[in-house]
């Protein structure tokens, strides 16, 4: 589904990613771990197509197409979804309105008709129930005045409504208490599907107690310094990141 080859990224004259190679197949869950500042968010933003990054080398293909040639919306229409580390507030625009605009934008590009308004609301409401979100959030402005945990849940709600094929979650676990973490993880697990892949970006291993990854990659200083199975996350939990960074430096 996704193939990243020798990806080098520069931001404001500074090399952030220095040769990333990663292949992700449908149905897989990949965790990307690493210390703060290692480039995890940068990689997530690159996948989503955010401006301001200079790709100096490498390529990314998605379902056989050149992802880097696609605009932000085109990627979304093709099934890329980024759950933001810091979800953005959009004052005056209600959650339900944005969800509807987003879903209809995607459907339009698949040549599908707009959803019936009643069916749409009913389906959104049932998804909110699963995420233990009050229906009143539908009519509140997008993320405005939401707590950190509410924002993260809202990201998962959007993801479950839009049904993307590649879900990139950037530190979705940060800022969640243990109950919320469980609710959000259950929400993500419900979306696991043979046709869908997940990239879980996280600093901590605790998310992986709830969502069992197929692969764990450690990102340090702009490179994947180690890859392994779910057990690698536990090793990191025990030993921290420094042994990997040291190894790399030596």
């Amino acid at each position, binding site marked *: 589904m996704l193939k990243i080859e020798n990806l080098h990224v520069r931001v404001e004259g500074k090399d952030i990613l220095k040769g990333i190679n990663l292949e992700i197949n449908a149905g897989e869950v990949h965790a990307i771990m690493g210390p703060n500042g290692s480039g995890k968010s940068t990689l997530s933003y690159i996948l989503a197509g955010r401006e301001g990054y200079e790709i100096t080398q490498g390529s990314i293909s998605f379902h056989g197409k050149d992802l880097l040639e696609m605009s932000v919306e085109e990627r*979304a229409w093709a099934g890329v979804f*980024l759950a933001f580390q810091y979800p*953005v*507030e*959009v004052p*005056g625009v209600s959650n339900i*309105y944005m969800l509807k*605009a987003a879903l209809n934008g995607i459907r339009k590009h698949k040549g599908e008709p707009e959803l019936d308004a009643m069916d749409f*609301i009913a389906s959104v409401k049932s998804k909110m129930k699963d995420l233990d979100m009050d229906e009143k959030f539908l009519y509140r402005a997008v993320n405005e005045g939401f707590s950190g945990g509410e924002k993260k849940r809202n990201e998962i709600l959007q993801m479950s409504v839009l049904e993307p094929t590649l879900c990139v979650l950037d530190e979705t676990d940060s800022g969640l208490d243990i109950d919320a973490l469980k609710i959000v993880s259950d929400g993500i697990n419900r979306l696991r599907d043979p046709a869908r892949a997940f990239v879980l970006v996280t600093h901590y291993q605790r998310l992986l107690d709830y969502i069992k990854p197929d692969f764990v990659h450690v990102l340090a200083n702009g490179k994947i310094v180690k890859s392994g199975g779910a057990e690698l996350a536990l090793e990191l939990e025990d030993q921290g990141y420094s042994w990997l960074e040291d190894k790399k430096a030596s």
Partner: protein
Amino acid sequence: MSASNENIKDMIGQQYKDGFVTDVESDSFAAGLNEDVIRALSAIKKEPEFLLEWRLEAYRHWLTMEHPEWAFVEFPKIDFQEISYYSAPKSMADGPQSLDEVDPKLIDTYNKLGIPLEEQMRLAGVAVDAVFDSVSVATTFKEKLYEAGVIFCSFSEAVKEHPELIKQYLGTVVSQYDNFYAALNAAVFSDGSFVYIPKGVRCPMELSTYFRINAANTGQFERTLIVAEEGSHVSYLEGCTAPMRDENQLHAAVVELVILKDAEIKYSTVQNWYPGDENGLGGIYNFVTKRAECRGDNAKVSWTQVETGSAITWKYPSVILRGDHSVGEFYSVALTNNYQQADTGTKMIHLGKNTSSTIISKGISAGHGQNTYRGLVKIGRKAENARNFTQCDSLLMGDQCGAHTFPYIETKQPSATIEHEASTSKISEDQLFYCMQRGISAEDAVSMIVNGFCKEVFKELPMEFAVEAQALLGISLEGSVG
């Protein structure tokens, strides 16, 4: 400039859609202004003596006045002798008695603008007075309204049919000496709308006036007077467009609202005069005096305006809160793009006890646009427990434009409560990226964000106008679910 800024520019810089010219033969006065012009105008309108005198008083006073320079707008000096003060389609000279007798070209003009004048074509809930240059072409649903006791007709007709009402109310809110452009308007106003809602009547339909400037080199000086008697209620809408021309044209209107005890007027404007081209050439100078007076207790008035057009907008729809417990509201969206300039706001003059006012102003500046909010909240000595809430928000797109805020507060009453909030923001790249990542196209994302910014104002507009206003900003309706 980044791609998303380009998107914003494209979005806002949409083509002006109503810029066509109607090819009709017109009777126009030669350019120039003197007492004979005013006498000739008054004679064409077969006005009573008192009105001619009133015009001449205004004119003589105007001659002594200096052009005001305090607004935050810049334009070359206007030569008032170069303007023609009257222009009307020839076909209107014999005063057509019904729509069948009106020149089809005129009816077609309004059809093109989306304002069909045939009653069966209209949305059932709205009556329209269509003003073309200096005359009213037609007023729909007059009879039906008359059955309810409501008078809705052109100003000229009101002068003929209801001179006693005109005499009683004309100039009582905005006097013929009030300010430079109001005095000029009083001297040369040609037409406009008149509304009278009798005691206890809730007007059965929305009333609206559609102003169209067509002729070149003419000024449009209309005058609107609305009187809401005790316990009555009316919602009134106003729309405006003009052809695209390289010369600037002057539009100097006066609107007076009289609201008696327990009565309410909701006055909404969607102003889309030709704004000039992307280099600032041409466009309408929109210099307007609008004022409402709450004369009785519990009277209520709200001004809602969406100002997207005009090269220069200079207006302050105001409220004199004389009656105790009276309420004034001002909701405004003003958008300036390219080289447009707007200096707009309101005055809330609290005289009665327990009066309250709300001001919500949303300024959007793009291109080289300059957008100024100027507002006065004045609390008189006797206005115990008066309250005002003001919120002024500015949204900037790009770095060539400007937003300015001048809130003035004068209070002589210690029990008054005055709150003021202000913010300036930009459409952030983060917001755009977030929306686009969700599959919303750049244009839709910009319009969604701008729409969200204006939401508190749009929700005050009658449904039909809200749709038009959002379309004007290139915005698809934030639907019934929102």
